């Protein structure tokens, strides 16, 4: 994938960190404000896709990124399932919220919603990045 012009690269260098941090904020505060794992994960994926489009990549980088994002997607999926399984581990049913509820409207509250949001955020971000790489850089990944 070729990179874009110097203007795009400069702007990308300035905004990309903010986009990534904003995505993390949306994931972490999903139980307090609008957003959550899905929206935050999509924003994080957007930051990676922006860097990919603006700076361009080599064939080797594309292959590596595809492998790494697949691994992260699996980690996110397994994380969400293990959060759900925690309930069964302690003798309740699947998806039982057994982590302490805490004080409402604090960051560390609402039991398993925070870890589940983080797991979903990782999963959704990696999944959207994988789809983008699969569609947009087929030429690199699939060439013999």
């Amino acid at each position, binding site marked *: 994938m070729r990179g874009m012009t110097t203007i795009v690269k400069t702007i990308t260098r300035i905004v990309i960190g903010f986009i990534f941090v904003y995505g993390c904020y949306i994931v972490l505060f999903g139980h307090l404000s609008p957003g959550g794992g899905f929206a935050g994960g999509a924003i994080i994926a957007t930051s990676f896709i922006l860097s990919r489009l603006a700076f361009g990549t080599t064939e080797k980088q594309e292959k590596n990124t595809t492998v790494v994002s697949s691994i992260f997607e699996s980690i996110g999926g397994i994380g969400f399932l293990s959060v759900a399984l925690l309930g069964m581990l302690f003798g309740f049913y699947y998806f039982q919220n057994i982590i302490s509820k805490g004080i409402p409207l604090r960051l560390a*509250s609402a039991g398993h919603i925070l870890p589940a949001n983080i797991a979903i955020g990782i999963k959704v971000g990696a999944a959207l990045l*994988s*789809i983008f790489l699969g569609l947009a850089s087929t030429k690199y990944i699939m060439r013999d």
Partner: protein
Amino acid sequence: MQAFYMLLVFMVAAGIVAVEIKDLLAAVISLGAVGFGVAIMFIMLQAPDLAFVQIVIEILAVVFFVAVILKTTHEDETLGRGYTKDDIIPILGFSLFALMFLYLGIKAMISLPSFGNPLMKVASYYIENGLKEVGAGNLVAAVILDYRGYDTLGEATVLFTSVIGVLAILRKEGRKK
């Protein structure tokens, strides 16, 4: 409320343009217009969570499509066959059905209770007990990750399946030489 209906008309028009136009890049942009219309509609209906997801996913989808179009072609290469005399009866029949459906739909919509009032039984339970039982300030998060965790699991599974599908279709081994 008038702005709401104007937005609806705009979205229908953009959808028709997206289907009918020959240039694929213009079609993708019209599709993006429909998506952002949906996002504005979610904001009007006071659903910021959904508006968030809709805006981000719409941007991503437009970027996906544009990236694919830049790699492949701008032209719509499907072979249209034009309309002949034999098509009149199906078109008339379909138009009749669509008008009938529209009329009945409008009648049904008018007889519905107004938006968000009165609260349904399940929703009022969530609003009364959500903060106490789950401890989450955002009730939507409490519903999708605690009361309705299985639905979120299904959603995650759908996304996983779509990724597997994309990578399986585009993989090297299954292609002809």
